[in-house]
Every structure is written in structure tokens, then in C-alpha cells.
């Protein structure tokens, strides 16, 4: 497989994942806001913080309200992480890898891009936002599903897996970080227990993890079990352990994978070590931050190993 094609497939997978998770994040966020007690004051701007987009956002908008945040995340083509920009990147990457990706995937990506272009206002205005985002989420799942049932488990597939799981691991750390940040904002009053539970439940929902969490952990939704589940579960596809295991398995199928395997193994040990605690406060945010850096390093190592054409 060509190095360049490998790189593009990897990025296509990352962006597909990013579109879906961004859509889901926005889609369930108003539910969180509706559920929180009135006394708790946090708003849409948290979505910007989760994605580390504070600077980009503040360069363009002065008001941190719902409309601006949603517009920025869905339709702003100057925001490289917006749905519109990510779709553009998926298109460019798939357009140039059409020899290894199933032909129907290209058609579906075109359809989705068309849909988003034509219906963007529905997503930005509140009344039809749910339908709009639902369509986006389903279309992403359709694309991934198509590849899952149709693609040969060859090198292109392994590259897709690497991209998808790096993006997922990263997104899960961001969701956890946002939750801890929100928890820290909750005042210690009579509503506190309820508010914390709502926040943790929201994290699970935004990762599509509520049902698997219930089945695996068999306990009520509280900080420690949620963190343990999202860090260490072997079976849930967005748990960081699962992502790392998939990365290791895919790397094994590829040539020259020794360094990537070693790095992913080391990272896994760090993740497991951080599940020893029973309470997660502000110091855990530092751990998550380091985890994000480590995932970023793993991403770069993947690039150095397979993408750069210095042969």
C-alpha cells in the first residue's frame, strides 16, 4: 500500500469519527442543559472547551451563546474541526483513495456533504436541529458500516482502524476532561449529588456508552465507575483500553510496527495505572492532559512509521 494512500485513509477515518462525535455532542447537549438545576451555571461554551477550540472561537465571536457555538461547530468552514470542514476533509481524502475504499463510500460521503450544505440552517436553528444531527450521525454510521461489511481486512482496513481509534481515544479523554471541569463548577449544595450524576450520565450518552456502562459495571452512575469504565473497559469500543488494543492489533498486521506497538503498550499501562483512584478531582485533569499528549505522540509515531516517504 502506498504511504500516501495510507495517510489519507487514516485521516478519512479520523474525520468521519470527528463528524459523528461532534454531531452527537451537540445533539445531546441541550438535554444536559435542560436537566441541570437552574442554579448551576454553565452553558454552550463548554463544547468549545472540550474540543480545545477556545482561541479559534474567540477570534471570531465575542458572544459565547448557543447560536454562535453551534454555528461554529457545525457550519463554520474556518473552524478546521467543524462538521462542514471535516466533511470537506473526508471528501478530499476519500477522493484520493478511491482505489482502496469501497465505491459506495464515496457516493455516501457526497450525499452527506450535499445534505449538510443544503440543510445547515436546520442544524443551527433549534427547531429541526435534532433531525438534522440525527441524519448526520446515521450517515456516518452508514459509511463506517459499509466499510465494516465490505472492506477486505487488508492494510487499508488497518489504517482505517488506526485513524478511528486514535480519534476515539482522544475524544474520550476530552469528554472526561469536560466532565471533571463541569463537576468542579458544581457548588457543594443540596443539588450537588443530582448535578454530578447528570453530568456523568451526559458523558456516557455523548459517547453512546450508557447502556454498555450499565451492563458492564452494574452500578449507579458515579464518577469513579464512569472513569474506570471509559479508561479500562476491554469491550466498549470508545473505552481507551479498547482503542489502544485495537491500535496494537492493527499495527501488528502492518510492516515495521515495532515502535508503534511498544508505545501503545506503554500508554496502555499508564491508562490502567490511573484507574487506581476512587475519586477524580482537579489533579486528574492533569493526568488527562498528559494522556492527550501521549495520544498525540502516538499519532505522530504512526505518521513517522508509515506515512513519511523518506525511502
Amino acid at each position, binding site marked *: 500500500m502506498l*504511504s500516501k*494512500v495510507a495517510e489519507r485513509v487514516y485521516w478519512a477515518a479520523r474525520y468521519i469519527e470527528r463528524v459523528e462525535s461532534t454531531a452527537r455532542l451537540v445533539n445531546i447537549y441541550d438535554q444536559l442543559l435542560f436537566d441541570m438545576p437552574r442554579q448551576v451555571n454553565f452553558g454552550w461554551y463548554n463544547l468549545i472547551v472540550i474540543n480545545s477550540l477556545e482561541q479559534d472561537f474567540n477570534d471570531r465571536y465575542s458572544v459565547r451563546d448557543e447560536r454562535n457555538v453551534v454555528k461554529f461547530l457545525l457550519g463554520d468552514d474556518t473552524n478546521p474541526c467543524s462538521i462542514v470542514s471535516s466533511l470537506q476533509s473526508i471528501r*478530499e481524502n476519500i477522493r484520493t483513495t*478511491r*482505489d482502496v475504499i469501497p465505491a459506495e463510500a464515496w*457516493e455516501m460521503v*457526497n450525499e452527506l456533504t*450535499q445534505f449538510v450544505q443544503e440543510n445547515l440552517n436546520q442544524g443551527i436553528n433549534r427547531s429541526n436541529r435534532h433531525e438534522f444531527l440525527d441524519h448526520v450521525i446515521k450517515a456516518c454510521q452508514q459509511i463506517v458500516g459499509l466499510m465494516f461489511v465490505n472492506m477486505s481486512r487488508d492494510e487499508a482496513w488497518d489504517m482505517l482502524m488506526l485513524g478511528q481509534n486514535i480519534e476515539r481515544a482522544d475524544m474520550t479523554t476530552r469528554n472526561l476532561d469536560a466532565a471533571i471541569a463541569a463537576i468542579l463548577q458544581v457548588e457543594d449544595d443540596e443539588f450537588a449529588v443530582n448535578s454530578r450524576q447528570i453530568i456523568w450520565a451526559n458523558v456516557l450518552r455523548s459517547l453512546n456508552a450508557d447502556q454498555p456502562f450499565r451492563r458492564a459495571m452494574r452500578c449507579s452512575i458515579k464518577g469513579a465507575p464512569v472513569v474506570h469504565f471509559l479508561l479500562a473497559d476491554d469491550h466498549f469500543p470508545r473505552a481507551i483500553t479498547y482503542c489502544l488494543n485495537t491500535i496494537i492489533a492493527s499495527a501488528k498486521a502492518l*510492516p515495521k510496527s515495532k515502535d508503534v506497538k511498544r508505545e501503545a503498550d506503554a500508554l496502555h499501562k499508564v491508562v490502567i495505572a490511573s484507574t487506581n483512584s476512587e475519586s477524580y478531582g482537579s489533579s486528574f485533569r492533569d493526568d488527562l492532559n498528559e494522556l492527550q499528549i501521549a495520544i498525540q505522540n502516538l499519532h505522530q509515531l504512526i505518521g513517522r512509521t508509515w506515512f513519511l516517504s523518506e525511502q
Partner: protein
Amino acid sequence: MPIDWKQYELQENFFDELISSPGNARQPARQLVNYLSSLSEDDINSRKIAADSTIKDMGVSFTVYTEGGNIDRAWPFDIVPRVISKTQWDKTAAGLKQRLKALNMFIDDLYHDQNIIRDGIIPEFILKQSKNYLKECEGVSPRFGVWAHICGTDLVRDSDGQFYVLEDNLRVPSGVSYMLENRSIMKRVLPEVFEKVNIAPVGDYPEHLFNTLVALSPRDIAKPVIVVLTPGIYNSAYFEHAFLAQRMGAELVEGSDLVVQDDDCVYMKTIAGLERVDVIYRRIDDLFLDPEVFDPTSVLGVAGLMRAWSAGNVALANAPGAGVADDKVVYAFVPDIIRYYLKEEPLIPNVETFLCYDDEQRAYVLDNLDKLVVKPANESGGYGMLVGPHSTKKERETFAELIKANPRNYIAQPTLALSTAPTLVGKNKLEPRHLDLRPFILQSKDTYVTTGGLTRVAMKKGSLVVNSSQGGGSKDTWIVDTTTGNR
């Protein structure tokens, strides 16, 4: 209101592909025409919309260079197919094979003994002044003596209903993916007609292309490595490059993915390291192929590629230098070329051509610029042409100067009465629009001609320019067998 074929305004002195006289369809088109008459205005309109959205979903696009930034543009498609009888097509296909066979013998001769010049069939200066003759190719012997493996020949039908060859594209002809996509669109748009009419399939082209390329492999191995070399995403035909690579299971590469090592072999950069390449279906022009030999600033090509090719370590399709035979001056000699190498009469005639280097013919051309089409010898894509009847006085004066300054570089042809076919205009009105036909011919170990080809339509009323780069559109082309009865 369904279509009333009696209202279809046949153009006087033009051959119409579907309609022979008001209200009467030609035999191979009869079922199609009847079927279209059975549709209501709404039916036709909704099929048109279905076709447009299919095109968008497929991402079929053709870039026009002047549209800065926006690299996608839906390729205008007309839902009324063009129909040709199988009997007529079979004869035409034989003529196309004959022509390419002779052209390949001609190219091979030019780069070796040049017998055709010694025997006085073609004047030597034509070769000497040809931009597409490459000294670097002299003495090289590609497999099977074939230089142009993929040829796109433009055919036009004159008022007499006869096909003529307008030009041979032997460098990097494009359009075959549109032929294939048009067919899959039509199957979705008019499935009822496909059930009834005996329409020859076109879908096996990638298979034939693959076999043509495999046969060129310099290494005798079970699975030679075949790549499609594209200039990249900003090229107007990128869609096609990706499409063909995908359909053949070949790697789609850019120059930067390839490297020539000291052993004069070509390698591609893969995730496992370097892997040797056997056959390159290149879709970049000769002069960008190798910065070592040609344009040193080219970033599209691969340094050392010509070395590897001359050494016989990699096959290039088409071979460098093959363009020498699609010079429009050489074109005028093709009938003689066929007679010289094959000792046969040409099965498809040329369009009458005036060579401006000849004093007498030049004088005629200069006197009749308002009636003729003037073309530079070495351009493609409809650029740099003068269409006399549609030109201004100033344009004619400019061309007269150009011709006098460089007569060898210009030819002129009578304005052809390009045939027409009914084309959907507005919601459900059918009007005649001019069209041509580009079949694709393959030659290496075997020869192959597409069933039909790409029909290009001048979408503007009265226009004779069908090039996609000049805003033309396309139609599906049906080769219909009327002898075996219907399904």
C-alpha cells in the same frame, strides 16, 4: 403533454441520429422514441432530476480550468441517449482497429528506420518540425511494436450519415469513465427501455484496459504491479484516473510516490518500503514525464523515468513520443499511412483537410477563412481554434497572421455538418443539438474497441463545439442490435 415528435424541428442538411423525417424514428431508435412518447411531462422532468442527483452522488465532475477554486462541477448530461445500429457499429469498429494498427506501425517506423519517409510517402520536414517527435525515443522498441496503447478517436457523422474520423488522440485521451458512468446513470433513469431493447453493454472496458496493460509487463511474473500515474487532484480528469485505478485494482500514484533507483527500475513508496512497478498507465503529458530529460521544473513526473523505460524495465502506456502521430498535419496522411503499412483501403474516411504548409492549399484557406475551421497542429481540447462561420473579422485577421507566420502548424477543414440528436431543453422540449462520438481503442497483445463510446453534445443551440473544456455535455451511446429481435 407527452412529447410530440412531429414538433421536433429537424435541421435541414443535418443527419439526425434518432429521427429520419418528422414523426419517424430511425429503426434502431424506434422503441426508445416510442417509449419517450409514452411519458408525461412530469415523468420526463422527474427522470431528469433523478439523473442530476445521481450525478451529484457519484461525484462525477469535470474541472474547467477557468473556474478557480471550485474543482467540482457536475458534468452536463442529457437523458436522451444516442442510438447506433450494431451493423453499422461493427463496420466502424473494424475501421478503428485498422487505423490504430497502422498508426502504431507508423510510430514504430518513425523511431527506427523511417521507411515511410524514404519511400516518399510523408515529407521529411513534417517530422523534423513536429513538436511531438521525441529524439529520446529513437531506437526504443516497446513490446508488440505498439506505442499508442490507448487511443480516443473522434468520429463525426456528416449530413450523408457516414462516419468520418475528425482526429486521433494518441497521447492521454480522456472521457472513457464518463462513457461508463453515463451508462450506469441511464440504467437508473430508463430501466424500462433496457428491459426491452437489445443494448450492447459497455462495462467491460476496465477489464480490457487491465489486460492491455498486463500484457506490457517487462517482468514475466504472475501479478505485475500496475499503476495509474495522475498529475493529481487539480487535473480536469482526476475523477477518471481514480475511477480507472479503482476499477482495475491498480494503484493510483502521483509522481512523488515513485522513484527510479540506480538499477534503472521504477519503485513506488509503500508502507513496507519500496516496491517495483512494472506498468505505468500515465495520464500526464510527455514533457512532464521526466525532469531529467524534459521540463526540469516539472514536479508531476519522476526523475529517471525515461532511463527506466528505454532500458525496458518499465512499460509506459502510452509510450512517450506516441503523440507524433496525432499531429493534425500527420492526420491528413493517415489514409496513405494505412495503405502503406497494411496494403488496405481505409475503412473510415478522413475529413477533407487543407495543409497550410502547401502554398496552393494555404492560399485557398486564407481566401475562405469564413467557411473553414482552422486548427493548430498540436493542440487538444478545442483550444486555439478558429470556427470560421462563427468568427469575427478581427479573429480571422489574427488567424491569417498566425498561419502565415507558421504554416506548418495549421490545418483547415470545411465546417462539418455535425449530426444532431434530440436533447432535452427546459422541462420537456426536445431540440436537436450537435454531437460527436469518441470511441476508445486498445492495442497491445490484442486489440479492442469500446461498444460505442462517449457521445459529446454541444449543449448550446447551434454550437458545434462539443469539448467538455468548452462547456459541452454528454449522452449515453447505445449500440442496438435490431437483427436478433427483442427481449
